[in-house]
């Protein structure tokens, strides 16, 4: 194992975060605070409670997930896309480093950033609403699992994209709608029965449900199903990445 190479990639990627602190950390925190103002205060004043939890408190796990999902994808996809775009990928490909180590460096850094961000948003949320986390270990486990899974997904998008437009396309057109419709701001029990069935086809529902359970012990679907679905998506991403490196898809001629 070339642990020095993993460390080099990891630190390089983390250094980019500190260099672009406003974009990486401050901007998501500001937008989450705005969600609290708009959804928590404006809508929350009309919906007082959801399953025994005040609306402002109810949306916290969903808001964290919203940021973690989008930031994991954005960080990982940009992390691997940019060397491809600038040409510096030649160095990664010519280094004595295995594909697994490359993924570990890039995905590890992207996931770390998202986890840090998730925790910052959690702390920010604590300033707006009272929070009590029932299962902190499970909360962290869900956070880490989601960050890693969606960083892997972002890595795939970064490899696949051959232009900035494509880099934005999947997050904008697929992930954001799925997240908004995935129960970030409501319980899917609040939907009519037909739409509830449709919502269950959305993988993000399972992530948010499981994560919310770790906070308040309330869930749209059972926790084991949530974990199972997330792990299944993780495995799918790993298989795709294994295939990318085996074939050299969009990396090697």
């Amino acid at each position, binding site marked *: 194992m070339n642990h020095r190479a993993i460390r080099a990639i990891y630190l390089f990627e983390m250094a980019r975060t500190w260099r672009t602190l406003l974009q990486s950390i401050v901007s998501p925190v500001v937008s989450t605070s705005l969600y609290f103002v708009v959804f928590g205060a404006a809508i929350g004043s009309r919906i007082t409670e959801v399953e025994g939890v005040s609306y402002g408190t109810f949306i916290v796990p969903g808001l964290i997930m919203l940021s973690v999902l989008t930031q994991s994808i954005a960080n990982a996809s940009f992390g691997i896309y940019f060397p491809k775009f600038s040409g510096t990928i030649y160095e990664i490909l010519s*280094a004595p*480093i295995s594909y697994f180590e490359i993924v570990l460096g890039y995905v590890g850094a992207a996931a770390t950033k998202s986890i840090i961000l998730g925790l910052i948003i959690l702390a920010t949320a604590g300033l707006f609403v009272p929070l009590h986390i029932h299962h902190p270990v499970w909360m962290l486990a869900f956070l880490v699992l989601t960050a890693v899974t969606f960083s892997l997904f972002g890595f795939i998008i970064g490899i696949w994209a051959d232009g900035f437009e494509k880099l934005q396309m999947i997050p904008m057109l697929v992930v954001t709608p799925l997240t908004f419709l995935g129960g970030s701001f409501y319980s899917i029990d609040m939907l009519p029965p037909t739409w509830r069935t449709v919502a269950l086809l959305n993988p993000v529902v399972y992530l948010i449900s499981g994560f919310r359970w770790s906070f308040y012990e309330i869930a749209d679907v059972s926790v084991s199903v949530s974990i199972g679905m997330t792990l299944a998506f993780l495995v799918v991403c790993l298989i795709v990445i294994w295939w990318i490196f085996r074939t050299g898809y969009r990396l090697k*001629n």
Partner: protein
Amino acid sequence: MSSIISVANLSKTYGSGFKALKNVNLDIKRGEIFALLGPNGAGKTTLISIICGIANPSQGRVLVGGEDIQTSYRKARSLIGLVPQELHTDAFESVWATVSFSRGLFGKPKNPDYIEKVLKDLSLWDKKDNKIITLSGGMKRRVMIAKALSHEPQILFLDEPTAGVDVELRKGMWEVVRGLQQSGVTIILTTHYIEEAEEMADRIGIINKGEIVLVEDKTTLMQKLGKKRLTLHLQNKVSSLPESLAHYELELCDDGATLVYDYDTQGERTGITSLLGDLRTAGIRFNDLDTTQSSLEDIFVDLVRTS
């Protein structure tokens, strides 16, 4: 000298069906400077990319330091430093950070003293904290060399190292390359500048249309394929040459003021003595003469045209 790189039956066909390399066989000797010449699209960069792990071969085998580049890629790649043709740099990183990153990527422990030496050797020391985006093209090129040298490689690939670099800087680069060779590094360079190969290389390989046309010791190549040219400056202009001189295939230049005769130095007879005698018989006198050796460029153009 033993081979440090051994390429056997290497072929590369791209997805489009284009055959970039056709059954290439090549051995690079330890410690030499090997210049790979070829026109655009000849396969130079493809060959380097395969040896360095950036492209996959379609067929064939490459050993670097005795290690197979596919089955033993870690050992093989750790011996190689690559300076690609294009200036690919992390624009917002400092020189020090990017060179240190490269060392880490190749699995070497931190060694600030060594990085300092590399930067000083390449006259980059006073720029070590500058962001790469602020550097000139020549300096960026040297940063790329510093990155390639950061992990103390035994082999250095320089793909068009002096493309777009001014004459003075190019000569500075040659000094750097010579210094590296003296420190024991094997250097493979591709270039469009024939004078660069002529100036630097111990051996020369010519590649055209994906095939190695020739590999030869530089001086042998110059001798073997070098033509000499005798130019006679005539006392009086002549409008045409007598029939008796036709077999010399002389060329009348400058409105009949000079006569040009090409001859082969490797031939049994150069024909100079008899030419001079026949000229005197024909009453053609000259007041000066000079000879020139054909350059590597002429040799190269000839070979590529005929291959």
